[in-house]
């Protein structure tokens, strides 16, 4: 009898295999009804077909290397013979360094490569909450200065490389990192200014700034910076093209970020500022210790959304003749040796863009979860 009881107890401990575990999950979510089963099978079949097509094209039939022509250039005949049935990764092999670093002198391309690594390391360190203290600000200034110094060179035996020869991934990272790093403080000031009751002129200026910038597309702002601006300058005086684009980007990003930050400021209960006032905090102490930490926490999702959008918007510098990652890819495609292999190039670019954007969005989710946990404690 004892045995029977324990068997029954075991039966209670382990529910029937069809209602729990992976199989139970499948039954509940994918094969619950006839309708659901049909949709699952159809989508599964499409997914498999698509995945198989991708593997077949990208791996099985792909060409990884091509022989050299007698002149020393690559001979794309093997790729062309595929007629699109397989990927021509040999093209990426030939063009990767150009796509990543543009017209930076070939022998010196370890410098932009190192800069990209520095950028990624800087992001990594900044993302780790262990390093969130005052020194991180100094580290940013230091690393960004080091990156610029390394790109320009002109010291310690490194040949000087003018910034019109920079291109590819470093340009994309430079524009977006400097753009966001400088636009963010400006955005906070503009958002505060727009909410200011005591300073009507400042408020008016902030409103004007935000509405003017938001009223025109980024592309026209870039055109203004690159086409109109030089005409107003005396002949021969040309502020650097990259700098002009960078300033246009900062102004543009700041206007959008300011509105995001203002959203956070508005969502903050009035009691918070009143309590800070009651403690006798000065305006800036109130903003720094009470308002911003709470307001910014509220707007992490739209902030990251703006960051990601802005990161991709840097590709618009194409129209003013700067060679960012996307432009470098397009220029690589214009090479008659490799025309027609657009899919490979765009896939390569998409993977790079995706890696950065996905890392940003994953990180923001982690940060939100952490901050939410902190609040519920």
């Amino acid at each position, binding site marked *: 009898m004892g045995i029977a009881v324990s068997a029954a107890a075991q039966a209670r401990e382990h529910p029937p295999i069809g209602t729990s575990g992976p199989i139970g999950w499948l039954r509940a979510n994918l094969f619950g009804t006839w309708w659901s089963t049909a949709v699952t099978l159809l989508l599964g079949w499409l997914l498999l077909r698509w995945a198989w097509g991708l593997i077949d094209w990208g791996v099985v039939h792909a060409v990884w290397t091509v022989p050299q022509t007698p002149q020393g250039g690559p001979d794309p005949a093997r790729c062309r013979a595929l007629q699109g049935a397989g990927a021509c990764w040999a093209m990426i092999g030939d063009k990767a360094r*150009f796509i990543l670093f543009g*017209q930076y002198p070939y022998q010196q391309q370890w410098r932009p490569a190192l800069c990209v690594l520095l950028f990624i390391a800087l992001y990594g360190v900044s993302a780790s909450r262990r390093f969130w203290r005052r020194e991180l600000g100094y580290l940013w200034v230091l690393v960004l200065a080091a990156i610029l110094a390394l790109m320009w060179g002109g010291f310690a035996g490194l040949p000087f490389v003018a910034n019109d020869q920079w291109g590819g991934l470093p340009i994309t990272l430079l524009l977006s990192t400097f753009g966001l790093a400088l636009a963010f403080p400006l955005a906070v000031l503009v958002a505060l200014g727009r909410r200011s009751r005591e300073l009507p002129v400042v408020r008016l200026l902030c409103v004007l700034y935000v509405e003017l910038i938001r009223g025109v597309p980024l592309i026209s702002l870039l055109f203004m910076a690159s*086409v109109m601006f*030089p005409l107003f300058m005396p*002949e021969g005086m040309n502020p650097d093209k990259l700098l002009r684009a960078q300033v246009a980007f900062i102004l543009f990003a700041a206007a959008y970020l300011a509105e995001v930050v203002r959203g956070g400021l508005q969502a903050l209960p009035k009691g918070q500022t009143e309590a800070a006032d009651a403690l006798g905090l000065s305006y800036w102490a109130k903003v720094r210790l009470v308002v911003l930490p709470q307001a910014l926490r509220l707007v992490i999702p739209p902030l990251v959304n703006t960051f990601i959008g802005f990161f991709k918007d840097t590709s618009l510098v194409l129209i003013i003749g700067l*060679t960012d990652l996307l432009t470098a890819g397009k220029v690589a495609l214009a090479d008659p040796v490799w*025309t027609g292999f657009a899919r490979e190039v765009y896939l390569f670019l998409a993977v790079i863009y995706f890696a950065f954007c996905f890392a940003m969005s994953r990180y923001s989710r982690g940060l939100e979860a952490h901050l939410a946990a902190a609040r519920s404690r």
Partner: protein
Amino acid sequence: MTSSPLARLPAVLLIAGLLPAAAAAQGSGSATLDAVRGRGQLVCGVAGAVPGFSLPDSQGVMRGLDADGCRAIAAAVFGDANKVKFVNLSTENRFTALQSGEIDVLIRSTTWTLGREANLGGLFAGVNYYDGTGFLVKAAAGVKSARELDGATICVQPGTSTELAIADYFRNNNMKFTPLLIENRAELESAFLSGRCDTYSTDSSALATFRATQPKKEDFVLLPEIISKEPLSYMVRKGDDKWFDIVRWSYFAQLTAEEEGVTSKNVDEQLASTDPNIRRLLGTEGDMGKALALDNKWAYYIVKQVGNFGEMWDRDIAVLGVPRGINNLWTKGGLQYAPPLR
């Protein structure tokens, strides 16, 4: 009507800008040449994305007919063809870059037209490529002439001079056509390949390049009619005639060298030549370089380091499968003609 202070502002800025330029102009008589020498580098505006004309290779080095034209000018000025900075320009900002002094010379497959020369403050210094709108058809279609294209669907990029040229041509000949407009060149070409249009129309140089990169180029035929004139030219700012001379004669020197059979390979032997034309070209006789405010061996440096016009053509254009055609020397039935270098 009196001018408002605001309307006078550009003039004031212009004068303020010209003052330092005028002060510097006492050197060679050319403000641009002095500026180029002062900075030790020629700043040359190119497209940077057009195969055959200016396109960086896999190592990032600018290649093409336009890029080599820039190198020739640098060789003439400095005796060193590598002292060039290439500035990539879009079709939108190319003229501003020239007007504002950002570049010294614009060599960006720019068509020479009256409107541009009269309105944009620029001078066209020489035609390095005579291009024109052409038609490419599939050989299987059996079309032999553009006159047989009545009712055809034509693949063309929107907003280009090609589109206007086609409309003019078909209206003149009382024919009808359906345009298939696609902005992106690669998509346009795949539309043509997949048979969505009967013919693909753009500059004949681009058509020849496209044909040459196809797996079986015999499947495509370039129709004999060229329906528009697109003389692609060097461009400099108005108001600096000495600089204009240097740019124009750097190009003429390359043509003269080809005509006289002087190449980068044999130029050192040709220094001993007794032919007065070659002696004047290479600076062993006369003061041709001095007249341009350059070294007398200016043309020697050009030919030695960049080559003559035919060598440039073979290196940059012929490899794309484009026939020399009207771009041949006048002695060989083409349009390329240099005035006497004496």
